[in-house]
């Protein structure tokens, strides 16, 4: 798992590259736990190169969502591959998280 960060004044974009499983999700959790993350209005997760996600990866997002909401930070996923989106769907997480097709829609939120 490789995580590339890009930020503007109010938006942090994390581009995920690889597979998010019980081994690699620790790295993502570390990134999302940094206090600076809560300074942004939006945290965008670019999933274009995210080839796989297991419950451990989903759990990282689930565990941070409330804290983000409390701090007024919007968490938005975009460019998600169908097979990864399907994992969110199986659990019904697609209805609880903001997932949009592309960077354009993500920026507009």
């Amino acid at each position, binding site marked *: 798992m490789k995580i590339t960060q890009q930020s503007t004044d109010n938006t942090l974009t994390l581009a995920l590259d690889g597979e998010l499983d019980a*081994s690699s999700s620790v790295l993502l959790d570390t990134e999302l736990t940094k206090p600076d993350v809560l300074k942004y209005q939006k945290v965008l997760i670019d999933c274009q190169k995210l080839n*796989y996600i297991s*419950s451990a990866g989903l759990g990282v997002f*689930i565990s941070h969502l*409330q804290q983000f909401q409390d701090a007024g930070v919007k968490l938005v996923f975009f460019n998600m591959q169908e*097979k990864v989106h399907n994992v969110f769907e199986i659990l019904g997480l697609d209805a*609880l998280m903001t997932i949009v097709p592309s960077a354009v829609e993500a920026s507009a939120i």
Partner: protein
Amino acid sequence: MKNAIRISCNRSNLKVVRDFVSTYLAAYSLSDLHLNQIVLAVDEVVANLIIHANGEDESQHLNLHLSVKDHVFGIEIEDDSKSSYAPSSYREPDLQEHIRTGKKGGVGMTLVNRIMDRVEFTTSGSRNVCRLYKKIS
């Protein structure tokens, strides 16, 4: 086609298991989505066995055996940990509650149960076996 593998209880072997299952199923021309679901279900059970049942003790091992019979994919995952999973302890998760409390785990077996057609856990003596089945035609 290789249909059996033995791995030590280290998280880094999850990728090895996913590749093993994907390679085995390549001959069956499943859709990306269908293949990913089966690989995910196996990954979830193996992660639980490595992390929870065996405490990531690398001296412990899991034996995995794959088969396809009458258009049904089957996997047998065997270990000899003292703590075996009791399916009767399973509860459907309340995701809103998980979000509210910031809970990280507890949805892996939900994925397994929703993806696979049949999920069995048995213990005989010191040997625990998990069997998962999914129709693939």
